[in-house]
């Protein structure tokens, strides 16, 4: 899948990416000469052992960090060279994030949390409210709109997180271990929800997980190992 072919219109196109972290005097090479193409409408699972660089890769795709070398193109736009300021605006327009932790601000209700990305748009208050209602309905949380995160179960919190991730109708939904903190049942519900978003609404999703059960729901799974992607798990 990850041939060195020229740009074929893949939504996510990563070429020759290298990521080196400097810790003190020591250089840690996390990704090296990594290539990845994700076509629009795919639900990709990214697996690999802890510390293998999954989050690092996801952050590069989401424009949260710059690669040390190589190119990251999303929907035909090179984002690896954008300034921090341009990247922030780019993220607001194109990416929805769902994290394992810190998903919701505890001081805001579910609907106010979901509204956050819309504050960065030019939508009116009424329009924002309508979008929030749609997103909450899509994750089946409309009856919890006025609840604070502490009043929600883990699964409900994560659903609110997904609602926030999709409320701007982003190009890409990036999930970093979205079920990592949930029990099996709640986790299954979240996976079902992501699957539905992908199948019924055509959302392109990239999900980091180390749970084979989770990756089974994806349309494709890739493995990160020693800084490179493979199609098979590599002991």
């Amino acid at each position, binding site marked *: 899948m990850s041939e060195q072919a020229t740009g074929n219109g893949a939504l996510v196109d990563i070429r020759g990416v290298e990521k080196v972290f400097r810790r003190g005097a020591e250089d840690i090479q996390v990704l090296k000469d990594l290539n990845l193409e994700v076509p629009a409408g795919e639900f990709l699972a990214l697996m690999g052992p802890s510390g293998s660089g999954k*989050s*690092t890769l996801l*952050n590069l795709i*989401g424009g*949260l*960090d710059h690669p040390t070398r190589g190119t990251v193109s999303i929907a035909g736009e090179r984002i690896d060279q954008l300034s*921090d*300021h341009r990247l*922030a*605006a*780019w*993220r*607001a*327009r194109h990416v929805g*994030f769902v*994290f394992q*932790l*810190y*998903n919701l*601000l*505890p*001081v*805001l209700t579910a609907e*106010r949390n979901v509204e*956050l*990305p819309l*504050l*960065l748009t030019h939508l009116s*208050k009424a329009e924002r409210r309508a979008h929030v209602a749609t997103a909450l309905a899509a994750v089946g949380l409309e009856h919890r709109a006025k609840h604070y995160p502490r009043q929600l179960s883990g699964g409900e919190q994560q659903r609110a997180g997904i609602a*926030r991730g999709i409320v701007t109708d982003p190009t890409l939904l990036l999930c970093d271990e979205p079920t990592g903190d949930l029990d099996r049942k709640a986790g299954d519900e979240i996976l079902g929800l992501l699957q539905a978003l992908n199948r019924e609404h055509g959302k392109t999703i990239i999900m980091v997980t180390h749970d084979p059960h989770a990756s089974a729901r994806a349309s494709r799974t890739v493995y990160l190992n020693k800084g490179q992607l493979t199609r098979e798990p590599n002991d």
Partner: protein
Amino acid sequence: MKFLHLIWANLRRKKTRTVLTLLSIVVAFVLYGFLSAIKQALTGGVSLEGANRLIVRHKVSIIQLLPESYKQRMEKIPGVASATHQTWFGGIYQDPKKFFMQNPVVPEEFLKMHPEIILAPEQRQAWLTTRTGAIVGRKTAERFEWKIGDKVPIQSSIWSKKDGSYLWEFDIVGIFEGRDKNTDTTPMFFRYDFFDEARRGGTGQVGWYTVRVQDTARPAEVAKLVDAEFENSSYETKTEAEGAFVQAWAKQIGDIALITASILGAVFFTILLVTGNTISQSVRERTGELGLLKAIGFTNAQMLALVLAESCLLAVLGGVLGLGAAWLLTSHGDPTGGMLPLYFFPARDVLAGLAMSVALGLVTGLFPALQAMRLRVADSLRRI
């Protein structure tokens, strides 16, 4: 404004901490209000009229007297437009705690020297024709419910009459108003010719002179010339701007202005630390949340603004509440029963207070805001 909800929610995160911080800001600004009013009371007479008026007093101390004949000599000095004198009477009406000033003056000269004292023409006429006549400011007239035509007995602590009695009686012939808000309308003025003739000692001697400087002359140079004129006489003088003189009076009670300024400095320094600590703690606690906002697409500038808005909201809220409370508390006027006739919280100090609250917000929010701005998203989301 759509971010207001978010800013407000962040302040409510730890309600107790926010309320305590808010309270300490409020207290600081109430204190500021009181101290402003006290400072106003001690230095208020200074500004407007005082600029071209000088006070000439005995070099050794204010309680030593000067000859009445100095007036003619002063008016010959280049740069002096006119001179007139007052004398400290030190009188008490009914209760020594109900302090107000009463001085003998030469009516025409006095009124000309002090255009800020507004007296109706017929009352002025009455004063010029009544030897025992006295005029009193609106505040004191209302305080003792004096009306024109009243006879008021004043017990002097310094001056006795020829019959040895210290009890003097005056006829109220006028009630004057102040032209400006900071014109003192508590004193009483009566006629020097009556006083000089009736007093037992000190005839021909007066307390101090007020000198009007010609518009073209420099007050500081005129002051030097006046003091030079009387150098090596048995009554050497010390000449100061009127404002300096008022403050010198205040120094009799202690250097309150300096004390209040130091208290204020200490209070605001403490408030700076308290508020700064609250904001930076609150920012540190939510590194993850701030990282999330950045991931969502909040720009560096927006992060900076968000934290600054939070600290400014807290500081300005505290400032407005504190200044408002101080305004209310000082609006009843002089709490000392007469010692501080110009006691009020001046509008310019209220505005300065507001500016200070904004500055407090900016200063305390700046470092946490920069911290939030520099936060690297990927890092902030890593840790648990």
